[in-house]
């Protein structure tokens, strides 16, 4: 209580922007790992990807001998393995939204912007730090579920090797899809600033709009569906080319486009608005 301040000598030189960026990344990493919601969302993500993938693949293997020839010939060896990504994208989405909205709901945003007035750089550092965390967790989960599921499928001789054409790309594609969904979520959170609203918009885009688009008259329904975030993401983790999906590279470009547009809009608004 009665302790006095210990003066500290700090060189007050002008810091270069790359140095500021690295410091903000470190700060954002500290923020992420010191709240419990991060850990729970990531645990849920891992369990969704691995648990659902293994469960559904095991069910398919159990029913394999009763399948028709048509079902067997069009079989994507990764389709069931990566079923969990559809659930995991929701937990990553919520976590991405919270990266920004939790700062607004708790007033921390004022400390954040006070510590780093360079707002574009701040959002960039937030996006990069969150992306690295999602990439690491998703990649570990995707690789793990791949090997477990292929071991199960190998008993029916329909498994694939990681070295087969398109397989490694699909495994990495699954993780990249998670990162891009997470980035979109950070952008939506920055634009909307309220957790409930941002989560509602994100879930509507991922879950509800695809269903509504299917109600449009043909061929609009299928043509538009190709370019929705959910379909573009699914294209990235498919090994077999489905007629209702884009090519993997095109799917990546479409989803990347959504992420870039969302973050671009978020940056404009973050700079323009009062905190």
């Amino acid at each position, binding site marked *: 209580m009665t302790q006095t*301040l210990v003066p500290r000598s700090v060189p007050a030189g002008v810091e270069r922007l790359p140095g500021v960026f690295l*410091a903000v990344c470190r*700060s954002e990493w500290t923020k992420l790992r*010191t709240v419990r919601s991060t850990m729970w969302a990531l645990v849920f993500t891992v369990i969704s990807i691995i648990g659902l993938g293994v469960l559904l693949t095991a069910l398919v293997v159990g029913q394999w001998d009763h399948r028709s020839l048509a079902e067997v010939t069009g079989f994507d060896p990764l389709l069931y393995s990566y079923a969990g990504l559809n659930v995991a994208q929701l937990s990553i989405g919520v976590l991405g939204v919270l990266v920004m909205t939790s700062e607004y709901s708790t*007033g*921390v945003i*004022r*400390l954040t912007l006070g510590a780093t*007035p360079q707002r574009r750089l701040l959002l960039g550092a937030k996006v990069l730090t969150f992306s690295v965390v999602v990439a690491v967790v998703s990649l570990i989960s995707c690789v793990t579920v791949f090997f477990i599921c292929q071991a199960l499928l190998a008993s029916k001789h329909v498994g694939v090797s990681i070295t087969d054409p398109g397989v490694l790309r699909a495994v990495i594609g699954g993780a990249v899809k998670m990162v891009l969904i997470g980035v979109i979520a950070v952008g939506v959170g920055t634009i909307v600033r309220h957790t409930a609203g941002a989560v509602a918009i994100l879930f509507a885009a991922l879950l509800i709009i695809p269903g509504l688009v299917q109600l449009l008259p043909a061929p609009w329904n299928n043509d538009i569906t190709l370019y929705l975030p959910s379909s573009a993401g699914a294209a990235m983790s498919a090994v077999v080319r489905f007629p209702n999906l884009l090519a993997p590279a095109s799917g990546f470009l479409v989803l990347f486009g959504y992420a870039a547009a969302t973050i671009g809009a978020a940056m404009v608004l973050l700079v323009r608005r009062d905190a």
Partner: protein
Amino acid sequence: MIEARNLSKRYGGTLAVDDLSFTVEAGQVTGFLGPNGSGKSTTMRMIVGLDAPTSGSVTVGGHAYGSLRFPLHEVGALLDANAAHPGRRARNHLDWIADSNQIPRTRVDEVLGVVGLGDAAHRRAGELSLGMGQRLGIAAALLGDPAVLILDEPINGLDPEGILWVRHLLRALAAEGRTVLVSSHLMTEMALTADHLIIIGRGRLLSSGPVADFIENSAGHHVKVVTPDADVLAVLLRNKGATVTVDGPQELSVQGLESQDVGILASGAGLTLYELSTQRASLEDAFMELTHEHADYKGTTQSLESSQT
């Protein structure tokens, strides 16, 4: 040093800050006073670059806040004492702020000690009392050992011991040559803490100067006289150039003459006095007088009183 020049901020149709110019000097505590809703917080948010001015400019140490890199080494601010993630531990709350401006983690332990939160460092921010939260906010402001401190209502929620501690801390920081700007709506607290006052009402500058000048120049200083011959004395006093207010059938309030002059005048005319006393205006009265017309939210005790009579 903080310099505001013709600072204005408009929210929709309301002008929250209206052409405000002032200078906050180093080495003293400057009290930033005004009724609730007078634009103190808005002004402080503009100083640290959170809100953009509609017109005008403000600089800290000669720089616009937005141009500073690692600004916490220059400016420490407490704008909202509740600004902490409730699930994050007090220590981690300071950790991320330190990281963002390359402040070494050893400094986190130092400031926790300075504000007396050393034992509560492991507690989650949501579990801290109002006063402890306030101390955590002050710790965050001190992290970068800044030359300029900006504190919005730092004694809110503090117990008497805490208030005394803040008062000593602010005085010590100013004595080290730092610039200290503290907002408050409590005039009495500022009288004890501040050297200089900037008073605003409805976003406009009402007064700026040393605390002592403010007390002396305030119009509340007057002589109270109770006499059966109030009418006669009032005429005599007015002839001497004094301003006389009739406070009751036998009571006068005199400005412009000292009590001894009033006494000599009364005895010369053979008037009886029941009471003769000098009334010193409290700072609170002076502040009320200055800001009364500028307060956005006034109580309505007058109408209550009249309805009872």
